[in-house]
Structure formats: C-alpha cells, structure tokens
C-alpha cells in the first residue's frame, strides 16, 4: 500500500473585506491507499475547507497537495479540474443529485464527464449491487428516500474508480437507520474495492466505523 494523498503545511486564508480570516494554519496529512479516514472537529475548525482543498475545489494560500502522484497545487485551474475528474469522487451532506435525472442518469452523467472508455456496465452493476440500488435506477431523486439518495450519490462518486472519495458529512441529513446503512456501504466499498475514503463527520459512531480518526481544531490537526 502506498501513499495516495499527501498534504504539506497546508494553509488557507479567506479575505472577508479587508480582513484576513485564516481557515487552515499549516496542516500536514498523509493518507494511505485503501484507508478509511474520519475527520472530526467543531464547526468552523477548517474541516470542509481542507476537504475542498484536497479535492481541488479551492486553492491553498500556502502548502502542497499531492494526489495519486499528481501535484494539485502546481496545476492550473483546467488541470486541477482534470485531476478532480480522474481521481476524486465527492459525496455531500445534501446528496447533490441532479433532480431532473434518474438515478441511472446521474451515474451516466458522471461517466460522460469522466470521458470515453469510462462506460463500464460491469462496474456499474457491481456498484449498484453493492449499494442495493438495482431496483431504484429509474427513479428520480425526489422519488427516493434520503438514504437511497445518498447511496446513489455514493455510487456516482465511485463509478469512475476514483483514487479517493471525499465525503462531507454524508450522514448529516439522514436518520439513524439510514445513517447506519450508508456507513455500512462506505465500509463495504472500502473493504471490497479497497476504496480510499476521507469522511468528515460530527457523528462519533460514524467515525468509529473508520480505520483512523483525525481531530481538527482552529485550522490545525490535533
């Protein structure tokens, strides 16, 4: 198992008017391939900022991020988008599915964005079977429960075999039963597909499902 993600001395300062607001103050993080990592900490500690930086949605004020051998921080915006497309899968608290598309449509969209050669029906079927979504593929998001929507979002995130899945409080909008179900799916993906997952959570039970937990406070990993 090698290192799949490495962040060095990561800093992020937001400009709010004329005021500098530091969100990250020098974060170092190394994640091994196949690791299931939980990130915990109080609101405003910089968890989401770190996740957005690791996924290339934001650029750091200082520091370096290497994802699967590619330097995200040295890349142009277009190159960063390309790295994100090939190597990162996102799962959000609010599911963020396209409401006009069916569950299958959401997956196919991800495949189209990923590009030619990514349409892998066997992979799609395997993911759908694992996430118990075979009979939900022709439903639109509003016809699905919250747990089902999040499973579709998870399927969409992993369908193109990303190096890392970044999940931002994926159980935050779910009841206990659905949270447990979605967490089990994360674990299954990690166990069976050796999928690397970094998951932000406030839920200690969710964090307990992970192999490693890191705590953040005031822009630092503690």
């Amino acid at each position: 198992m090698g290192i799949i993600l490495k962040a060095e001395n990561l800093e992020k300062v937001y400009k709010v008017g004329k005021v500098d607001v530091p969100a990250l103050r020098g974060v170092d993080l190394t994640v091994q391939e196949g690791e299931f990592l939980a990130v915990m900490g109080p609101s405003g500690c910089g968890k989401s900022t770190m996740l957005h930086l690791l996924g290339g949605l934001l650029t750091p004020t200082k520091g370096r991020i290497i994802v699967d051998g590619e330097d995200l921080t040295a890349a142009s915006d277009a190159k960063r988008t390309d790295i994100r497309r090939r190597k990162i899968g996102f799962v959000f608290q609010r599911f963020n599915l396209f409401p006009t598309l069916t569950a299958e449509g959401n997956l196919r969209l991800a495949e189209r964005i990923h590009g030619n050669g990514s349409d892998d029906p066997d992979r799609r079927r395997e993911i759908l079977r694992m996430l118990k979504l075979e009979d939900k593929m022709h439903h639109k998001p509003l016809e699905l429960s919250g747990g089902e929507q999040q499973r579709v979002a998870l399927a969409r995130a992993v369908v193109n075999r990303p190096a890392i899945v970044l999940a931002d409080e994926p159980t935050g909008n779910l009841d206990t039963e659905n949270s447990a179900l979605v967490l089990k799916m994360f674990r299954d993906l990690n166990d069976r597909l050796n999928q690397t997952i970094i998951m932000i959570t406030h839920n200690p039970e969710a964090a307990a499902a992970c192999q490693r937990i890191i705590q953040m406070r005031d822009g630092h990993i503690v």
Partner: protein
Amino acid sequence: MDNLVISNIRQRPLRSAISVLGVALGVTLVMLFTGLSRGMSDDLQKRSSNVRAEIIFTRPGSMTGATSANLSTKYVDLLKKIEGVESAVPVIRHFYPSGVWGVDQVEGVDWDSFAQMSNIRLIQGRGPKAIDEIVIDETKASRNHPVGSLVKLFGEKDFKVVGIYAPESGARAKLTLEAMQNFLEAPGKCSYILVKCKNCKSQAEQIAVARRINEQLPGNKVQLTGEFFPSIENSIPGLAIFMRILVGLAAVVSALVVMLAMHTTITERTREIGILKAMGASRVYIISEIEREALAISFMGLLVGFALAALAGFGIHKATGLIFEFGGWWALTAAIIGLAGGALGAFYPAARAANLDPVTALAYE
C-alpha cells in the same frame, strides 16, 4: 431519463415554451416580411410580364411607383407612323391609398386596343364603356366581386364591375382612359404609351425600333418593357436595407429571449453547476451542455416559427389578398438566425456559469 439537456427542458415546460416562442417569433417575422416582399414583388412582375408590348414610351421623370399623367396622347398617332411600330396604346396608371397593403393601383385604358395588344380576353361580361365601369382580373373577382357588383376606387367612389378578364396583366382593375383622364383632370394625357413592334423577334430588333423612336421623337423616354417594370425591391431603394434591418432585429429578439431564458436557468441551477464542477466537468463541457440546451430550444423555435409563418401567411392571404412567397434562401437565413441567435444568446450565461467558483456554487440556495 439520463440526458441533462432534455430533462432540463422538460423540467420547466412553461419557460421552455416561452423561449421556443421567442425564437419562433423572430423566425416568423423574418419569413413573413421577406415572404410578403417577395410575394408582392413576384406578383407585380408576373402581371407586368403579361403586358405584351415590347417598348414603353413615356416622359422623362415619370415615376413607376406614383401616379403621373404628363404625356400627351397625340404621341400615339406619331408612334404608329414610325417604321417597325405595329400599334401604340396609351395607359394611365394611378396609385391610390387602399386597404391593408396601403396602396393599390388602377389603370385607364382603351379596352379594345389594350386587350388586343396584350392578348387578354374577357371571360365574363364586356369591356368598360361608361366612366363608372371597370373590368377586373380573376384574382380581384375571387374576392367577392362578381360581374354587376360595385367596387370602391379612389376612396369612396363606386364603380360597377362589367367584365372579368384573364390572364392578369398590369393593375387588377381597369377603367376607360377617358374616365381616368376626367378623374385626374388630365384630358389628352396619359402616363405612358405601350408600343408593340412589328415582327420583333430579337431584342436587337426591339432596340432598333426604340432607337428610331428616340430619333424621331426626341426628348422623351424610350425603354424596353422589361426594364420599365422593376421589382418592388428595385423600385423602392430603401426596401432591401429595411428588410435587412428587420431580419437583424428578428435575430436580436431571438438572441435576447434565449439569453434571458438561459440566464434565468443558470441562476436557478447554480448549485447544479457547482456539482458538475465538483464532478470534474471542464469549462468546455459546461458551456457545451448549456449551448446544446439553447440549440435544442432554438431548433424547436425554428419548427414552430416556420409553422406559424405558414399559418399566418395563409390567414393573411385569405383575409386581405396579400401574397406571400416563402423562399428557400430566406428560410435558410431564418434558420441560421434562429440557431445562431440562440447559440450566441446562450454563450454569455454559459461562459458565466463555466467560470463560477465551485464552492460558492455548491453553497447556493
């Protein structure tokens, strides 16, 4: 449903329909304006080409698009004496405000000699004799003007239809030359004299006769018939420019409607664009998705626009007699305008969407 473009169009049917109608409006305007111009021009050309005289004799400065009766009918006899001239028929063409088209025309002729020269025949009734009698062509008769009915000319003055002739030639209504001279208070005058040549088989022979007329009756204007009856576009110098401006405006209308629709769409879908960005969609991908949606809307607008133009043209023709002739070239122009207008209109909102900050877009409520 796994196509983002189609699903987005179906998601907001009212807005999509308004956008389609916006494009359709531009296409319909282009088709109707150009169809009307071409239809009326071709109709006049066709009627003019049925005048069998080869030469028109008139005074310098006489306008083809306005009434003039400044040529003495004494020239008729002088023309007949010139070698190569078979017959000469004086005509007064009078333009007057009328109906929806805004202007109509009537001709004063000596019916028998005019009919003989132009090879037209009465299919009903007889030629005009009294000053309040007219003959009309079949097109005008088909608008509820049978023989014996009254037709208002020159405003409110009633004229009795005494005959219907075919084929159509020149103005659709003709009265006697004397009646027209009285009406215009121009006794002994006409607008032009139609000259039929003897055995003129080639244009060179016609030109030779015209040259002789010019030599023997100098100071007048001698033209071949084909040059005298220009198309509407040529006789009204600003019409071509006016049409181009209308076409341009139609393109702007289409583009603005699509731009507004796509701008609204993108504002509503800001978070979805954030999701696309999080999924790794490039700027080009996002722009192309929005452009594809705009083009799909524009294409539907095209089809609706063509259908509306055909329906409106048919309805207006039935109600007013105006003639529409839809040409392939203008249909192609309208199609390009509709599609290009839609694509250009969508480009700014598409580029704006592609440049959205993904984190800000994802946080959009």
